[in-house]
């Protein structure tokens, strides 16, 4: 039986617009706009939202719904799959969706090595079948001050780590994206140092909220969202959730991370969502939830403070941003 307790940071069920109603509202707005266009009225710029598309066929059922999911309504599938930061497939938000067909995800394997008892190379087919897949509906907060709610399909990273048995002196987990300019053409230009790399502290990697996602909206991950397997760490800014992973290494020392290497004063190793620590480009106090007009307040640890704040007890989060 699924028992879900409401966290103080969650919105009240009464505050959530039922999906049917907001779809009705969109149809109304599109119809109004069309009417306005035909009568020659110009104005009311910027309130349009992408057309909602039906959810794709459920490719991954049955999987269990996780009590760690938020009950906020998910962002439109179209928005989730057409508004992406994945520089390996282009730097414009729409580029990854346009170039996703270049990212062939078979054959694919993930190497798990470093300070582990049993290093392994796991074929993607095994990743998809040997772990219990769950749906995890998480908030995603980008460092650029926008956010989404995404129904991921995946499994806890801890489940994978348990199989390879980290050694006693392993303290960090390093992740690496595929390096292949043919499949990830953005790597032909040195925008960042390729391949993209990320890292977590071992306790962060073991946290039950941290998952490896292999799908979203019940379907396999589209290329633009980091197919075939990506990390999702919902209390950190989106860039921590590295896409298209080919290597996971346990290390003793803090591994380098791509954006930190590119601009250390802007992007730290931890990159926890924190409305009180400012960023030189964007105020982190508020965010625009994709599909909404008004900005909303950004929550500490992206609303997951109850679950993760203890990991950072005693740390100055302004220093360890």
């Amino acid at each position, binding site marked *: 039986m699924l028992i879900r307790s409401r966290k103080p940071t969650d919105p009240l069920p009464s505050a959530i617009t039922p999906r049917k109603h907001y779809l009705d509202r969109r149809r109304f707005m*599109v119809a109004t*706009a*069309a009417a*306005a*266009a035909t009568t020659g009225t*110009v*104005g*009311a*710029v*910027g*309130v*349009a*939202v*992408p*057309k909602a598309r039906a959810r794709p066929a459920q490719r991954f059922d049955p999987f269990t719904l996780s009590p760690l999911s938020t009950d906020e309504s998910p*962002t*439109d599938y*179209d*928005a989730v799959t*057409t*508004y992406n930061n994945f*520089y390996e497939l282009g*730097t414009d*938000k*729409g580029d990854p969706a346009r170039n996703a067909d270049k990212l062939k995800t078979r054959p694919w394997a993930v190497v798990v090595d470093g300070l582990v008892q049993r290093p392994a190379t796991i074929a993607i087919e095994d990743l998809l079948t040997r772990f219990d897949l769950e749906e995890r509906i998480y908030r995603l907060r980008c460092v*650029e001050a*926008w956010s989404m709610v995404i129904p991921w399909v995946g499994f806890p990273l801890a489940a994978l780590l348990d199989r390879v048995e980290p050694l006693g002196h392993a303290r960090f987990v390093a992740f690496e994206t595929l390096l292949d300019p043919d499949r990830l053409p953005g790597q032909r*230009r040195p*925008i*960042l140092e390729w391949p993209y790399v990320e890292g977590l502290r071992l306790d962060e990697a073991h946290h039950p909220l941290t998952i490896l996602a292999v799908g979203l909206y019940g379907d396999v991950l589209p290329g633009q969202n980091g197919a075939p397997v990506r990390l999702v760490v919902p209390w950190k800014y989106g860039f921590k959730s590295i896409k298209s992973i080919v290597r996971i290494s346990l290390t003793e020392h803090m591994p380098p991370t791509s954006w930190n290497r*590119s*601009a250390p004063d802007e992007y730290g190793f931890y990159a926890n969502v924190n409305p009180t620590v*400012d960023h*030189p*480009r*964007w*105020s982190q*106090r*508020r965010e*625009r939830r*994709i*599909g909404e*007009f*008004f*900005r909303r307040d950004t929550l500490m640890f992206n609303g997951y403070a109850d679950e993760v704040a203890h990991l950072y007890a005693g740390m100055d989060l302004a220093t360890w941003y």
Partner: protein
Amino acid sequence: MVLTARHDVRGRRRAGLDWGVRRVAKPVVFLACLAPLAWLGWLAMAGGLGANPIEAVVRDLGSWALRFLLLSLAITPARQALNLPVLMRFRRMLGLFAFFYASLHVLAYVGLDQFFDWTAVWEDIVKRAYIAVGLGAFIVLLPLAITSTKAMIKRLGGRRWQRLHTLVYPAAALAAVHYVMMVKADLREPLLYAGILALLLGWRLVARVRRVRRGPAHQAWPGSSARTSVKPPETAVATRGR
């Protein structure tokens, strides 16, 4: 007699050109300058602005402000390189459209993006250098837009007006820097604009250096010639007529 007739033809031709510019070319250019806004409005209403329409609107308006600034700065080089003095008559319109799109850009940022949260806007200006630089560009453009009318040119006097309007160079530079600073990692597009601006400003610099070298008589820029009292040599007068 012959002379008068020829003058007549020239005069009629000039009047015809004037009519064409005023009644045909200018309205056409005016409408063309509004096309980006119309297209944006259409996309907004048809839901074609993607997942983050507000960001799309703010960015598009900013891009067009910068493009019109560059276009207005391209008039003088184009006029001289192509020997088309008539181009000059479109410069003010292009400059004013740059200001128009810049105003909409600022308005969209304040009204749509921040929804008139003045505290947030102020924080952005103080804490985020690229916002301050962009605001600086807009503030520099303000007096230029205000003094764009014929009456204002008369009131200020051509020379002072011209000197005031050299402020368009720092305004464009600030706008280009604003764009470069805003981008996280892929600088291709902002650097393209900055490069075009550098070419347009560099062209002026080279033209000015050449003029200074050839002698004060060649200073065609009314605002910069403090030494016009020097009598131009005969050869200079001959080449000037080209």
